[in-house]
């Protein structure tokens, strides 16, 4: 007992002050990408062709970047002859609608809080059932990490529960494999209404590297209505936490953010 108490002092207090204090992201962290279109040579498609998931679409003069498909890899950055693409330290990226993840300019419509009635129900206590439907254990691990003392998800009233019948919604990872489709549907059906669905990671949003495989269904919204999309491969735990808090109306300010200039 004494040993455990001493260890407690040795380990120190480790919970981060987010969201009150802005976290400092590591210098190589790949947050929301930014593209300086004015640098693009005419007719250049190098980034779009290098992208493993076709997240970058160029037609005529317009460029669209689909954060839902983006793996946040370095392939486009390396392919660009003009260094027009870079990753910013911005970790906030969750949206309510799938189409909001498709960036055409420099702004992103971040997720808004749930409608009043559901927010009254879930705003101070949200119980989620996690379902991995073909996830690689990357997203699962970074969802799990929210339960550690660093993020201490419980302080926001959010908890992962063991049964769908105890849950207010599902948090889904993975591209939804054919072999998990019915289990996912059954789990959803077992959650009492009203209920919410959160899709975490490139796979759950659009199939990730596995999109268009006949063995998968290209994401959660192919079979269920999704209320929150959290992009990343996997998303940083703070990206997930920020999304959850936005959905619960705990991050009312800064609903829409321009890409920071640094």
């Amino acid at each position, binding site marked *: 007992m004494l040993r455990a108490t001493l*260890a407690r002092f040795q380990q120190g207090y480790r919970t981060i002050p987010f969201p009150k204090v802005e976290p400092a992201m590591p210098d190589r962290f790949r947050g929301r990408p930014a593209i300086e279109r004015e640098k693009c040579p005419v007719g250049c498609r190098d980034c779009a062709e290098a992208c493993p998931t076709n997240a970058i679409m160029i037609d005529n003069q317009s460029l669209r970047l689909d954060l839902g498909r983006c793996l946040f890899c370095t392939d486009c950055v390396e392919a660009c002859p003009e260094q027009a693409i870079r990753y910013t330290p911005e970790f906030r990226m969750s949206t309510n609608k799938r189409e909001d993840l498709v960036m055409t300019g420099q702004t992103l419509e971040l997720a808004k809080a749930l409608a009043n009635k559901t927010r009254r129900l879930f705003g101070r206590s949200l119980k989620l059932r996690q*379902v991995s439907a073909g996830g690689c254990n990357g997203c699962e691990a970074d969802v799990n990490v929210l339960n550690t003392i660093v993020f201490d998800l419980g302080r926001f009233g959010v908890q992962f529960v063991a049964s769908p019948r105890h849950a207010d919604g599902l948090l889904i990872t993975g591209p939804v494999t054919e072999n*998990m489709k019915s289990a*996912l549907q059954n789990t959803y059906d077992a959650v009492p209404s009203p209920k919410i669905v959160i899709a975490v990671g490139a796979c759950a949003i659009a199939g990730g590297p596995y999109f268009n495989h006949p063995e998968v269904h290209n994401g959660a919204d192919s079979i269920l209505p999704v209320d929150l999309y959290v992009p990343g491969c*996997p998303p940083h735990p703070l990206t997930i936490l920020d999304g959850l808090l936005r959905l619960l109306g705990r991050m009312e300010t800064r609903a829409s953010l321009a890409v920071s200039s640094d």
Partner: protein
Amino acid sequence: MPTARSTPASNGERIALKSLSRVSMGDFHTGVIDRVRGGARIAALFGQARGDGTARLFAVLADGAAGTLPLLSTDVIKEYPALTPECPQAHGFEREIAEQCGVTPQGHPWLKPIRFHAPVVRGATNFLRVEGEEIHEVAVGPVHAGIIEPGHFRFQCHGENVLHLEVALGYQHRGLERALVGGPNKRTIHYMETLAGDTSVGHATAYCQAVEALTDCQVPARAQALRGVALELERLANHTGDLGALAGDVGYLPAASFCGRIRGDFLNMTVLLCGSRFGRGFVRPGGVGFEVDDTRVAQLLERIEQALRDVTVATHLLWSTSSVRARFENVGTVSRKICNDLGLIGLAARACGVERDVRQEFPFGIYRFFQVPISTFHTGDVFARAYVRWLEIQRSVAFVRDQLKTLPGGSILAEAKSPVASAMVVSLVEGWRGEICHVAMTDEHGKFSHYKIVDPSFHNWIGLAMAMRDQQVSDFPLCNKSFNLSYCGHDL
């Protein structure tokens, strides 16, 4: 001793497909069985469907004592005599061959689908049943209570006592091996990094070694050292997380909380390397994708010492708390004989006292020059699997420290050209769970004609089933966590 002619290969060595010895089915059969009896193990056993109900089988044997990987190949039509009755460690591989190639291993004791590919329908097969008046069945999954991947577990119980556990997987099947055929292409490395997300560095390294052998690419020494650092950081993060989760499963919260946090410290060291907690983007064909400057090295050295201090305190709580010891010891025991018969690998094997580690037996990359001693413990129980993790944490930290202090200079990336045509390579890496085996074959255009992946979990799931025999159902979470196997790595 073995009679059948095999092609000798070593880890990461390219072989022309035409020089691969093809033997008769009889010689293949005895060749595999004799070598396994002689102390080798099956690293991979797979088939290539060739239409009309014929298939070509390949066996990659791992002879740890000799440090060689004998290869055998044979052609079969519709059926062949199963290896499993005489060589139990072939059981999963032969189920896979039957499912993927449509040939039947005659006499296989439990021939049912392993991943439920189309057109096989899930639920079309039965589970092994124990009959008796007081026997009951417990079914768990695919959706589990925690934040983990899906799989189904079927227990045959007498009261609380488990007589048999059948592990039924396949829910995570994403068609990965099929999609690799025709590559390498722009998606290939991303498949590797998401094959089993907690082993991104391990699988990416195995793939890159295979590609580098196929392209005659010499990886710079600095890149080799940095790959070693990333691989050991992956081991450190996962081992630490597992020790925390084991503590959580026996209700000992101090160590659970501390280790959960320290795991993140190791992941954040990987972020320092490459911006990703899971090492995405770091290992690339030809070397590594990120330079690590002196300031970063200094930061890493400082952080790893701090993390070691923290994890030492946290894990010593486990070893010195009698209630934890009582729950870890003599639970989920796997004997050395079962370990050898079933060909268990990685830390699960080392926890049975078996010295099995690719870094020593088939050294690759930086491990050809710097050795990590093999850590073993003899009891084969949950305690052993926990304790081996702790031993390995110390050795990985020592290795990372040494590498960072003596990083060679030079470039970090060499150019990897196109793979040569009609060649084959076996690439082994000791991931944190154990031996990762990739076998790549190219066609006449230098594209992958076949790509076989064997995640360590493929060997070890049966170990969990064995560990549960004669245990209580309630010990399952603890036993499961002590192996912490990958579902998607198995299902591919």
